[in-house]
């Protein structure tokens, strides 16, 4: 006999679907099947069951190979590394629970570390823009119940947030949108004809990197002012038409992604997108939302916010919290050689940072806490495998609209494996002995 766990939260992307059903074996040890999840979410649950999973910490040897060590040795190495470093970087935090983040912050405060999360290569520029010009937004249920104008700007949820369109944005039937997608006009702005664009009423195939210009043109068109014949490869007639279409809606939303945060102009692109949203509120109701990537990158920003006052890139090395993107951000710190140890948890910079930054990690004392084998774990001095949050241990997570949802435990972790929070708590205890507070 198997049993089904319902209302399971998916620990993959910022959509944070909470309607998964996971079938587990009678002894509660193995996952048999996963329902309602997208292909990626299902794979995440199933992969936790992999036979070749690494279950104990591994230390890099002089010849580059890895040798199994105990959790006690791993705790000792990590605590010593952090205690001895002058300015360690503690990076990641986006694929773990708020409870674990909180313990991590205590450690960072003790050792004077820099705490940075994956927003640094994702929506960090969005956070900067919000600090410049604010952000009018709403919860995803508001979109489902009210929105009749949907813009996806520089994002491709069909691939990156697979259930977003069916749960919240394009298709769901809500209270004031009982005809689902028939109530809605969908706009996609992307230099490629993406699978999301194929579902849209309007696709603006923008010249790559010209988002600032096109956003400005939309602001101009909303006010009915003069435009040149083409902007960013789009004809002015189409821009005016789209502006009127947006103004004529009752409730609109701009979702945006890496297409605007990672292209040149970066935070300025987002400034302009937010100001377009604000302008549209003179005519109708409009909101804007970042398509956050990791399932709990938003939570990391929240916890850092209430504990230190900044959403990422928080430097505690001087004994008080400082924040200065461009200086206290991971890639800048690594490339400039300003950190002397690297602790990674809940992210894979080895795969997702430019190679020049990864080289620096590989040359420093480094610890990678991750359930998987990753490029980061394979260049770090120590790899500490842990239980999967949201599969083998619960914990609070924040969806892309900042709504907190408490993730569930579905099965036990393999015997003897620690969770993120347990490992961090042990490191923290050890540091209490190593680091004297004055």
């Amino acid at each position: 006999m198997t049993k089904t766990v319902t209302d399971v939260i998916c620990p993959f992307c910022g959509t944070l679907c909470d309607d998964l059903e996971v079938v587990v074996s009678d002894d509660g040890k193995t996952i048999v099947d996963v329902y309602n999840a997208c292909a990626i979410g299902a794979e995440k649950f199933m992969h936790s069951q992999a036979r070749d999973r690494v279950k104990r910490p591994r230390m890099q040897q002089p010849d580059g190979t890895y040798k199994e060590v105990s959790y006690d040795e791993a705790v000792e190495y990590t605590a010593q590394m952090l205690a001895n470093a002058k300015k360690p970087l503690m990076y990641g935090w986006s694929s773990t629970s708020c409870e674990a983040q909180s313990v991590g912050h205590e450690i960072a405060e003790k050792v004077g570390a820099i705490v940075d999360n994956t927003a640094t290569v994702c929506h960090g520029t969005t956070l900067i823009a919000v600090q410049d010009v604010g952000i009018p937004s709403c919860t995803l249920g508001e979109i489902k119940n009210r929105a009749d104008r949907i813009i996806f700007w520089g994002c491709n949820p069909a691939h990156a947030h697979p259930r977003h369109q069916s749960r919240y944005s394009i298709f769901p039937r809500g209270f004031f949108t009982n005809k689902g997608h028939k109530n809605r006009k969908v706009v996609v702005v992307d230099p490629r004809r993406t699978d999301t664009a194929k579902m849209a009423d309007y696709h603006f195939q923008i010249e790559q990197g010209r988002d600032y210009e096109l956003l400005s043109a939309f602001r101009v068109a909303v006010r009915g002012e003069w435009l040149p014949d083409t902007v960013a490869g789009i004809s002015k007639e189409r821009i005016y038409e789209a502006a009127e279409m947006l103004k004529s809606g009752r409730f609109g939303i701009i979702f945006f992604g890496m297409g605007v945060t990672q292209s040149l102009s970066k935070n300025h692109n987002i400034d302009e997108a937010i100001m377009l949203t604000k302008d549209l509120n003179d005519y109708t109701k409009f909101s804007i939302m970042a398509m956050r990537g990791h399932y709990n990158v938003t939570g990391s920003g929240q916890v850092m916010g209430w504990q230190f006052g900044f959403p990422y890139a928080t430097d505690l090395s001087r004994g008080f919290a400082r924040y200065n993107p461009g200086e206290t951000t991971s890639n800048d710190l690594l490339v400039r050689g300003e950190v002397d140890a690297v602790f990674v948890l809940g992210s894979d910079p080895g795969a997702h940072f430019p190679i020049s930054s990864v080289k620096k990690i590989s040359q420093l004392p480094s610890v990678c806490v991750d359930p998987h084998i990753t490029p980061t774990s394979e260049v770090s001095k120590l790899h500490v495998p842990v239980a999967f949050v949201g599969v083998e241990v619960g914990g609070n997570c924040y969806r892309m609209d900042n709504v907190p949802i408490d993730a569930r435990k579905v099965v036990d972790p393999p015997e003897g494996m620690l969770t993120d929070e347990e490992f961090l708590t042990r490191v923290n205890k050890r540091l209490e002995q190593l680091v004297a507070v004055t």
Partner: protein
Amino acid sequence: MTKIALNLISGRTIQQGVAMEGGKEKDAYTKACGIIEMDISDLKKLGAYRNTNVRVTSKHGSVVVKAIEATQGPHPGLAWIPLGPWANSVTDPNTYSTGMPTFKGVPIEVEIAINEKVLSSVELVQKKCRGEI
């Protein structure tokens, strides 16, 4: 040898997501991310068949990936490598004081490298870190 200049962007694909969760050390991840999607017109310019290994070079590095036809095109002049260490071997690390490397809009050159191998993610990153490639 023909070299063509393209503008590179990277990002998520569903295959990248699935393969990543299945294990980055596995072949499936290399198949999903050790690729470059090019417009069919650009493949013609290069004189490459579909599924040919190519070397992608930028000011910031170089990597061998398999060239395939754009799945979400047409996008002539634009090239796409899914998010991962292959893309990050050539991406622009400059943050211009924003903290954010310039992952999108990297000028690259592509040339056929039919006899070169697409490395796995772990091999690629380890070799780059050791300075072996």
